[in-house]
């Protein structure tokens, strides 16, 4: 039986004028776990991979240890947990085991001391080994990866491990603490493994809440390994594809072939819809009704195997002039926010590379940002400088634009 997930396509404009030229069509594709889905919580298989390099000394390491103990305390006794720490070496503090001996696990975590440099791939690779001991399609298999710094000499190895993890159904959820971590690398690790881009722990006291949220999100998983395929008829090509829910993340152009767009949704959590916005270029069409895209979502239901659900995106071409008010406001709202995210990311990338910003953003981009972000962007546009923490904070807030309810 399917029906665990509903899939819904909405187009930017249901009617478009016959113009004799190419036109852009926006399609929003949303996957939503239905309320009928079994409320049973899937067992968790967690590896907590922690940076304990010298720079973690003090409040950072202390609050991370408290947060890890809290996560372990809240896990079910039948869940599996492992704890791996790395500097330029790696050590398994807790080998993969049932999270039942809370006391013993807690004192193992307490024994962590700071020291050494940062070689993240070592930690990731050993964490993956611990996860694989128990990993199964019936469990939520996740690596929580925490670091405060830049890894030296092994970012490519980190990316390869992320690919391996993704291929075995293990998502990596990176957490960056402080100002020095490499957000491009951590985001990339999250996305490649079908986990999430990095979360920013701005102050040590925020660690508790963020670790707790990792646990809650894993406990809400209802179907696994969701893969969206958007097939396009001839005369329709993809221009862009952007994940817009739960957070905004642009897809690299190489996932767009001429005839289809593939998006990995990973685990679907109860009450958390996932959505992708696809921008299509439609070649001239005569008057009539056409399917411009067909979306198919495949996913795994624990204990039952793979299921599929489909939805079509339909546009009617007409010889009349279609007034702009006919555009779907929900779709346009996502288009606007994805656009703002893309341009703000462009500004930040330029600033990180050159220390200057030449891209001029139109006021209707900046107006949807929060006042602090607006002020910081004005500052860099005027030739001023902002801190590395500010850059991370803007990036983190901008990708959450679609979570804000407005208008």
């Amino acid at each position, binding site marked *: 039986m399917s029906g665990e997930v509903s899939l819904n396509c909405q187009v930017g404009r249901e009617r478009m004028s016959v113009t004799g030229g190419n036109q852009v069509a926006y399609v929003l594709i949303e996957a939503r776990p239905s309320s009928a889905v079994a409320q049973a919580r899937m067992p968790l298989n967690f590896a907590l991979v922690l940076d304990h390099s010298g720079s973690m000394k003090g409040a950072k390491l202390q609050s991370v240890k408290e947060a890890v103990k809290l996560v372990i305390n809240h896990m079910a006794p039948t869940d599996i947990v492992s704890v791996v720490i790395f500097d330029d070496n790696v050590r398994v503090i807790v080998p993969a085991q049932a999270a039942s001996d809370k006391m013993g696990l807690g004192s193992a975590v307490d024994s962590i001391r700071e020291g050494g440099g940062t070689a993240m791939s070592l930690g990731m690779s050993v964490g993956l080994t611990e996860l694989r001991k128990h990993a199964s399609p019936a469990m939520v298999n996740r690596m929580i990866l925490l670091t405060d710094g830049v890894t030296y000499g092994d970012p490519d190895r980190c990316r390869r491990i992320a690919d391996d993890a993704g291929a075995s159904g293990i998502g990596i959820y990176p957490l960056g603490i402080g100002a020095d971590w490499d957000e491009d690398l951590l985001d990339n690790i999250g996305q490649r493994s079908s986990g999430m881009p990095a979360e920013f722990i701005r102050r040590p006291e925020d660690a508790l809440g963020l670790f707790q949220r990792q646990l809650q999100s894993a406990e809400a998983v209802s179907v696994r390994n969701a893969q969206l395929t958007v097939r396009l008829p001839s005369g329709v090509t993809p221009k862009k594809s952007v994940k817009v829910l739960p957070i905004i993340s642009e897809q690299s152009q190489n996932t767009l072939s001429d005839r289809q767009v593939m998006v990995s949704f990973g685990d679907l959590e109860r009450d958390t819809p996932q959505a992708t916005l696809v921008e299509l270029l439609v070649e001239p069409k005569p008057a009539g009704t056409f399917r411009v895209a067909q979306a198919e979502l495949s996913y795994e239901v624990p204990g039952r195997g793979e299921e599929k659900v489909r939805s079509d995106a339909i546009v009617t071409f007409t010889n009349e002039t279609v007034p702009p008010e006919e555009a779907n406001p929900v779709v346009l709202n996502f*288009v*606007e926010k994805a656009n703002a995210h893309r341009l703000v990311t462009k500004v930040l990338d330029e600033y990180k590379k050159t220390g200057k910003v030449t891209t001029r953003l139109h006021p209707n981009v900046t107006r949807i940002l929060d006042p602090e972000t607006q002020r910081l962007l004005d500052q860099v546009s005027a030739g001023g400088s902002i801190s590395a923490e500010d850059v991370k904070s803007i990036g983190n807030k901008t990708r959450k634009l679609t979570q804000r309810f407005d208008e």
Partner: protein
Amino acid sequence: MAVVCSQGHSNPDGSAFCDECGERLDMTAAPSAGVPAAPVAPTPVTPPAPAAAASPRLIIQSDNAVVDLRGKSEALVGREDPVSNVYPDVDMTPHNGEEGGVSRIHAKILINGNQYMLEDQNSTNSTFVNRQKLAPKTPTPIKDGDELRFGRVVTIFRTS
């Protein structure tokens, strides 16, 4: 076919926002009037567009630069050369005009109300409308959406 934002960035019809600067664009693409730019496409039979306030301009494809032709009755397309005292209205020098084979005096756009003509001025590398080569010194009607090519420099002519 393209919509151009106030900073001159060109975007495909139906775009909601400018790709370059994020400006909100008007998504309404007017139904086609006359022959589409591609000569192979079938010609939809539709009445001509109402005479709106025309703002003739050239959009240079390589860099999306927009050259405004409003208020002119004649516009020279070429390359500036102070030595021979040539100062074209549309100077292709900053748009790779020299490498693109644009002559100093290459072609003229003639504007009379809502009527537009293009006349090649015996250029070395010829002038093309929708890939059709023009005979020298022979004014040829052009309209909104036509692709005008000067040597190897491709532009789109827009009036609306």
